[in-house]
């Protein structure tokens, strides 16, 4: 039994050391324009989903004063601040080459709840190109963004036109 335990704990010491050393010596891959093995991507993605779910668990979306207006306001914020990487409806984003790849939201939509999206935009996602936007958006703006994102891949008719009209009008007054 003693020898068994010795082997057990030696594994707990040797493996982490070996992993740290493997990367420290430079054997890890760093280039973002090549894909890591699919199992790595899937482990990381599920870790991110699970962590976001846990972190956002206590957050409640406030009932919107006017869901329609929030969606249009959020859409304008999205076109100004997010579409560059995440893509606009009918147009791919420019950042195709960071890894993990930037989800093209107008195409793929999202499975995150509004509270989870709020959390992600505010705090960012570590070790991705998603930075924390907490310093740049008010709470109201963050929630407006989530109202838009919730339906980004299936916008009700007319919403996109209203967003574009609002963006054009605001652009003209600036």
């Amino acid at each position, binding site marked *: 039994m003693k020898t068994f335990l010795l082997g057990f704990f030696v594994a707990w010491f040797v493996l982490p050391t070996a992993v740290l050393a493997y990367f420290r010596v430079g054997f890890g891959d760093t280039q*973002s324009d090549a894909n890591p093995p699919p199992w790595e991507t899937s*482990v990381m993605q599920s870790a991110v989903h*699970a962590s976001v779910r846990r972190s956002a668990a206590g957050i409640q979306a406030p009932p919107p004063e006017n869901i329609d207006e929030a969606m249009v306001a959020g859409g304008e914020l999205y076109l100004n601040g997010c579409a560059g990487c995440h893509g606009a409806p009918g147009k791919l984003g420019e950042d195709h080459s960071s890894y993990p790849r930037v989800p093209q939201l107008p195409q793929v939509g999202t499975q995150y709840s509004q509270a989870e999206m709020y959390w992600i935009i505010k705090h960012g*996602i570590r070790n991705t*190109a*998603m930075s924390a936007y907490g310093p740049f958006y008010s709470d109201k703006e963050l929630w407006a963004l989530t109202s838009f994102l919730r339906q980004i891949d299936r916008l009700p008719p007319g919403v996109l036109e209203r967003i574009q009209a609002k963006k054009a009008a605001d652009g003209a007054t600036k």
Partner: protein
Amino acid sequence: MVPPGLEERSVKKFVVGFVTGSLVLAVCVLGYLRLGLANVAADAPAPESETRWMLSSVHASIRHTVPAGLKDPLPVDDARLIAGGKLYLNDCVGCHGAPGKPPSNFGATFYPPAPQLARDGTQYSEAEIYWVAKHGIRRTGMSAQGPYYSEEKLWLLAEFIHDISNLPPQVRAGIEEKAGK
């Protein structure tokens, strides 16, 4: 007196213990991730030891990957530094900071944070900077710029960034003049 066969039996027990330990460790790590216990917020501070290990690992990997003998085909001169500076001002300052300006607030909201090249300079060689700009760094905000820049522009950028914290005054003036236009 060691009874016959004891040594062999202990080796076996040790190996069984080692394999069991490895499996339990792997299950614990996967479980930890799968349960969402790893914090993924980009704006939460990470332990300094982790950051240091990661930055060293990235640099080690790049040293390891960049082909030996990869070299800037043209010699550096002031005109090329100014051209590289202009590219940098157009495309990199948003995250990496502009020379003579305060560091980028936006770059600080990533994890890992974007290095403030204009303020801190870099320890990377020209060839390494070229390679990073071209291929990006996985699991950071640094995307691969290879599809958007010609080889020549990548080298101009690498030359400029290599010298960014140590620019001759006439180059500084040249870049500001160009940027003003």
